């Protein structure tokens, strides 16, 4: 099934077009992006049950962008009628007038090439049709099943979210519409050890509908085993270790350690060391990396155009260890004289667009996981990323994972260490990668921030990788 259009946006489109005409009469470039979003969260845990719409990440909103005095200015609000035009135009003009007091960063205007389309993603099960009762009952059953698995489990949280969004982008030469549905789900288990509570989670996501829930039951035994194992976790002796990273940890390294550093608004600000490494080796020749909203690995960041009206791309970032390209929003691309890659994204339509990742991953290699484990004399299998922070300027790593399983003489010993902080220098880690698994796994159950704000949905992943990493 295809996601249908928003009746609201179709009704409002003539109004936005009239506003655009008035803006184009005053400014050399103007565009309008508008959204209509339906988003709902289902959650059951010891805290109780929650079923409710989610706010903050989407709503009915619009942003007007105009070009003046060599740069852009934006005005955002939620909805508009023709009666509002005068005040909107006045506010934009006031904003521009005030900004003329400053030196503007030179920005070539958008090419605004002619383009029109309406595209929609597919789904199997519409969460709205499936209904609140069926969804929450399913989560409740999963929770009960999880709690019954071991008496040491003190709580199980099961959650499911969906977001169906509709966007239109209008400019002098562009008339674009997209309709997208994505979902994600997760299980979190908790077990107590004295004053400490150990947690383990497993999550999944999909470009589609409530069919994602079919994956969740298989998470229960994995999560149970991990959280029980964590009860006997030991602190790790800091040092450098041979490590195998699970696909989710690989995803965190792809995204946090390297991915943020090739967001090309960072190139504009001279905040990314990667700018000096285009065309140079940054990783072992086993590593190829891609990012894009149409990479073929559909997930929560798949779309047809970004929040500046640029068509989605599939960007080859690293090719066999050589940095080929970053990814860019339109404004940064113009400033750098490169092609925009459809990575201009906003937290919601009333926020600013920055260069943001979409679906980002290392491609598959040729190694079997068993062979990778067998190749390690003394090391760890790292799993369950908990947080990460970028350092594009200096390529320092900060990634935290919940645990590492000890490997001795090519075998998992059963010992577990927790928590673990990964640190070091990004190219050292990437160039140490000596084995790459055969299967890419990716997920997008969380959000990515730009610094500490502007949260957008992304997915990341890759195969199992073997690398040498400094751990603490």
């Amino acid at each position, binding site marked *: 099934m295809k996601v249908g259009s928003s009746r609201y946006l179709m009704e409002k489109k003539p109004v936005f077009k009239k506003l655009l005409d008035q803006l184009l009469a005053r400014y050399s470039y103007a565009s309008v992006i508008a959204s209509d979003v339906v988003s709902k969260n289902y959650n059951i845990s010891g805290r109780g049950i929650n079923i409710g719409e989610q706010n903050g990440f989407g709503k009915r909103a619009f942003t007007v962008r105009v070009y003046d005095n060599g740069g852009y200015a934006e005005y955002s609000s939620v909805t508009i009628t023709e009666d509002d035009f005068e005040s909107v135009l006045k506010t934009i003009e006031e904003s521009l007038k005030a900004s003329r007091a400053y030196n503007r*960063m030179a920005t070539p205007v958008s090419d605004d090439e002619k383009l029109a389309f309406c595209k929609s993603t597919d789904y199997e099960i519409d969460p709205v049709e499936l209904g609140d009762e069926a969804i929450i009952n399913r989560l409740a059953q999963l929770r009960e099943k999880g709690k019954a698995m071991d008496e040491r489990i003190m709580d199980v949280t099961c959650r499911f979210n969906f977001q169906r969004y509709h966007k239109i982008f209008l400019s002098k030469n562009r008339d674009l519409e997209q309709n997208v549905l994505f979902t994600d789900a997760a299980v979190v288990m908790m077990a107590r050890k004295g004053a400490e509570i150990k947690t383990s989670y497993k999550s999944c996501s999909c470009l589609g509908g409530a069919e994602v829930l079919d994956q969740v039951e298989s998470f229960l035994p994995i999560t149970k085993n991990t959280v029980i194992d964590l009860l006997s976790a030991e602190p790790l002796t800091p*040092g450098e270790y041979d490590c195998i990273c699970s696909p989710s940890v690989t995803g965190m390294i792809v995204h946090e350690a390297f991915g943020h550093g090739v967001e090309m608004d960072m190139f504009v600000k001279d905040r990314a060391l990667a700018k000096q490494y285009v065309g140079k080796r940054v990783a072992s020749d086993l590593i190829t990396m891609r990012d894009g909203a149409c990479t073929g690995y559909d997930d929560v960041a798949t779309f047809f155009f970004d929040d500046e009206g640029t068509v989605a791309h599939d960007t080859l970032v690293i090719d066999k260890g050589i940095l080929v390209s970053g990814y860019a929003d339109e404004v940064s691309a113009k400033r750098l004289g490169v092609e925009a890659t459809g990575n201009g994204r906003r937290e919601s339509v009333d926020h600013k667009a920055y260069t943001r990742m979409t679906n980002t991953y290392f491609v598959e290699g040729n190694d079997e996981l068993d062979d990778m484990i067998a190749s390690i004399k003394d090391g760890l299998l790292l799993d369950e990323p908990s947080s990460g922070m970028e350092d594009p300027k200096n390529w320092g790593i900060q990634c935290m994972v919940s645990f590492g399983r000890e490997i001795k003489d090519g075998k998992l010993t059963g010992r577990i260490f927790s928590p673990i902080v990964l640190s070091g220098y990004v190219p050292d880690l990437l160039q140490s990668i000596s084995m790459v698994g055969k299967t890419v796994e990716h997920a997008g159950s969380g959000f990515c921030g730009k610094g500490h704000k502007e949260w957008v949905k992304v997915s990341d992943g890759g195969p199992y990788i073997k690398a040498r990493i400094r751990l603490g």
Partner: protein
Amino acid sequence: MLNLILETLKKENIAVWKVKKTLRERAELYFIRKQLDMPRYAVVPEYEVSIYRDFEENGKAMRGLSVCYVDEGQTQEEISAKIQAAYFAAQFVKNPFYELADAICEPYKESTSNLRGMDIKSAASALADAFLSIEDDGIAFVNSLEIFVRRTEVEIIASNGLHVSFGSDKIDGEFVTQCVKPIDVEQYRQFSYDNLDAEALKQKIATAIEDVRRRANAKVAPKTGTYNILLTGENVATFLEYYCIRSHASTIFPGYSTWKKGDKVQKDGSGEKLNLDLVATTPYSADGVAMKDLPLLRDGVLQNIFGPTRFMRYLGEQPTGDFTKLRVEGGTMKFEDMKSEGTLETVSFSDFQMNAFTGNFGGEMRLCLLRENGKDIPLTGGSINGKMQDVEDKLIFSTEKYEDGSYCGPYAVLIPNVPVAGI
């Protein structure tokens, strides 16, 4: 719009409800070096409608809640559909019954910020002018700056007669400092103020420029081992979140935290006893509870638990609302005296974190200063990985103070014997 929502609730015969209207106005300025990247202005009204449904489950009184958001400009037909959907969903939200926040009805409370009455675009410009007035030497400077001036008007109305409203004004943002010699490095900083204070921003930027200059001279990570660590500034607040999260009603109700009022939650030891207060930064909580400062710890003993209405009612406590600012009393040692030989002062992390469930804290150090032979040696890289339960009885706080939008208290805390992964 608010009246239309209230009319529709009546038309749909919804007995128990709460409506929170929030009008947000934002003036934003983005700079790259000293050039304006983009000005933005936004006006975003939001209508959060909470629909409650009372029912019995196995003879027990239940109160289900489902929240929906009504958009400005929606028709009564559209609002009705949203309310009906939320009322339908609420029957599956099988949570035990609780009373809403007490039905207070009070006149509008104006923001006490000096931003009140000021055009927020002008306030943003005043901060920008202050930033642009900072002279730099071209070696260490501000790489980029984002300024947000926010004006918020909130009105909360509920079916039990609750009706409160207030205004608030806030400045926040972030900036990155860069030093290009001898090594090209940067540091990230956030700021948050309730009042327009351009001098405070200038001072924060000046300090950050000096810090980044020191980072540029830092060549290696500390050696692996255990160190006495000095945490400073906003990281002290993050470190002490351990006590806030464990005394939050939503953590206590499901048993994630076993803390009770009167518990000695900080171990006895050679360190300072903790005296913490939660600071009210808005007149009313999201539930419409009148907010006032709340003592949290006195000499390491839990004085109060806190949280939103549902969980506080479940625990038999008067709702307090949620807090976003922590005040710490005390501090017995001068900052300079805390820096004994071998102490590692952590100036900045990539992201310092506290896991309140386990007590683990840590992060990768972007800049730290190792006191060696009476001098501060700048180092970069490596990570700390400590545990609150191992150190809480030995904490020493500085007499120097620090304040931002989420913290007020000692500038630094000395934490003994923390494992550091370095070279």
